[in-house]
């Protein structure tokens, strides 16, 4: 999918420089927004960053290994509730609570990943859907701790700026980890799993351990994003934080940008956040339909994502480091 794995070294280096520059500019703009932008701009960008964190973390497992997780929202939800419960019932300070959120999500990822990653293709996709729903129901039933369907009210604090930077930090870390993964042999091994798992295993790749590791790291970042979200919005309920649409948005963003690439999720989330914002503001009554049409269009016309589209045109060099 992502072009030849071994690319021309010089082109790759050039591509890396271009991307590093673009990324630095983007990060710079995002860094300074809080100083100039209104709180709405901040909220909008922060929710975009949240999508980006979800897309990036989804990409780590699904984009690289090809295991399509259709229950990624589960980790976001677990993170939200772990942080929420830690803050409300444990009186734990927010930074620690968010760390707990990440750890909880990673732990759940390991627990369910171990059996679930034995499933292939559509069976894994449907299985993860089941995992997400089962966890959502469990959280709803555990009413004394979670508040059940009533939701959980956190002490409201005006922490928009802090949450903004925290979310940015999660996104940055996700991108860096993805970059490391893509450039180290481990990335090649993950991609090998995607191309042909049996062959990969025969070549001595420790498939199970690698998959599980990628899954846990992926869950960790989604959990961190969930924790920050809960802290900032101060009210969570199962229907919102376990919404299947969170997963699908992450998937759509990654696909738009290019799955299994470093920058795909970033590019995709910027584009899709921007586009959907523009859509609903201009067509408030049919924006749902339009975003559906948009997704269909992406799938039909940009099946390999923007990165691949640009590579095919020769506008940017091929490199798996992107």
């Amino acid at each position: 999918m992502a072009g030849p794995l071994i690319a021309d070294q010089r082109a790759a280096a050039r591509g890396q420089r271009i991307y590093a520059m673009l990324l630095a500019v983007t990060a710079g703009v995002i860094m300074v927004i809080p100083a100039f932008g209104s709180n709405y701009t901040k909220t909008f960008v922060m929710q975009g960053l949240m999508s980006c964190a979800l897309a990036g973390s989804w990409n780590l497992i699904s984009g690289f290994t090809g295991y399509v997780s259709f229950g990624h929202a589960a980790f976001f939800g677990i993170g939200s509730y772990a942080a929420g419960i830690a803050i409300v019932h444990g009186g734990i300070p927010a930074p620690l609570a968010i760390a707990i959120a990440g750890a909880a999500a990673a732990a759940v990822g390991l627990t369910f990943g171990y059996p679930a990653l034995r499933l292939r293709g559509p069976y894994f996709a449907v299985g993860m859907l089941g995992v997400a729903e089962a966890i959502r129901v469990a959280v709803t039933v555990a009413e004394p701790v979670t508040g059940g369907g009533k939701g959980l009210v956190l002490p409201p604090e005006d922490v928009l700026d802090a949450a903004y930077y925290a979310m940015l930090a999660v996104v940055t870390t996700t991108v860096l980890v993805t970059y490391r993964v893509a450039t180290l042999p481990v990335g090649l091994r993950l991609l090998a799993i995607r191309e042909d798992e049996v062959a990969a295993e025969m070549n001595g790749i420790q498939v199970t351990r690698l998959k599980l590791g990628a899954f846990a790291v992926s869950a960790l970042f989604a959990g961190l994003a969930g924790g920050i979200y809960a802290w900032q919005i101060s009210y969570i309920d199962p229907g919102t934080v376990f919404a299947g649409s969170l997963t699908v948005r992450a998937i759509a963003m990654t696909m738009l940008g290019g799955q299994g690439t470093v920058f795909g999720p970033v590019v995709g989330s910027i584009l899709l956040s921007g586009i959907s914002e523009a859509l609903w503001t201009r067509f408030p009554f049919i924006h749902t339909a339009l975003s559906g049409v948009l997704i269909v269009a992406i799938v039909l016309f940009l099946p390999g994502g923007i990165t691949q589209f640009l590579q095919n045109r020769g506008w940017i060099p091929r490199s798996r480091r992107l």
Partner: protein
Amino acid sequence: MNTRSRRSILAGLPASIGLAGLALSACGGSEGSSAAPAAGGAPAAGAAPKGAPVKIGASVSTTGSNGKTGQYQVEAYQLWAEQINTRGGLLGRPVEMVILDDQSDPTVGTKLYEKLINEDKVDLVLGPYSSGVTQAVSTVTEKYKYPLLSAGASASDIWKRNYKYVFGVYSVAESYFYGVIDLAKKSGYQTIAIVNEDTVFPKATAAGTAEYARKQGMRIVFQEQYPTKVTDLSSLITKVKAAKPEVLVGGSYQPDSVLLTRQAKELDLNVKMLGFSVGAAMPEFGEGLGKDADFVFGPSMWEPSLKTKGNTEFFDTYKKKWNREPDYHSATGFAGGQILEAAVGKAKSLDREKIREALATLEIETVLPGKYKVDDTGTQTAHIPVVIQWQGKDKPVIGPDSMANGKPKLPMPEWKARA
């Protein structure tokens, strides 16, 4: 993202909305004497509003799971804005509504109120629909000290956080079934079963009902929750049947109210009183169930047949403008507008602190039964929910006595005995 490309669903209306008065003069005659509080500072009715528009923002769910009910609220906001402009505007200035859609998602809701306040620079806001969204959004409005009239939410948790700027328009969810319980008590029924969907509002309804029923000396023989988007309630109903309650109430929305009624009949569950919180009061409940809707009770925050102040005009103008009859969610939305109007009148300015003061102390009549009056927490205390019962094609108000225009029919006959 600047105000130039403002995204109001009113974009289709004339930009100079003050002129809209001309087009609407047809119904202007009755407007002057309608529910408008003759607030000080407002010019005489009919004078065209002048000056820069007063921008009032709201985000309401018009898509997503609450899209149906949210739509009523939006229509009411727009009707109110149109009417206030024909009778001279707010403080003599035209009102311009900026209405957005939060897709029934609290996350989007908070973003949109940030947007309304920071980008669209609205002068005032009105509340969103649903308790979940309001819960999240009120944190934003509190931060900016914008008074928020909760015209589409009533879970009492909203007022348990010591917020200073959020005010209830209608009774808290917990009190919805008080009227039904009173009636059950009066009719000598002793046992009750309570079921509810496990989300914010129905949960609050069920909790309040259980507490009140206990206080009234009724025995709760069965209580259980079911998930949203439930596809089967047969096992639940089988259990209710075994518990043999005289009264069954559901903290429910429309789809589950219909499902509960249908499956109660299919499993031949016979109770003497059957009531649902949101579904039953909607006209669609009767349309969808036909004769099976008969005898079902429902609390309603408002009914077209009530003799409240300006109710007939509200009903007629709404129907004329939107080509359908208002629902009680329209009425609470409209009342939200009326209360805001009165509060601005009392404050004689757009100063939000003064408006907050006014909202905290105001006591006025709206199209809703009872009055608008809040306690220290902002919880609504003077609104009186009514109880309706489906009787044929009508749903007369059968309680409380002071507002009743029909008599309750009790007990509900056994399904077998009905045609």
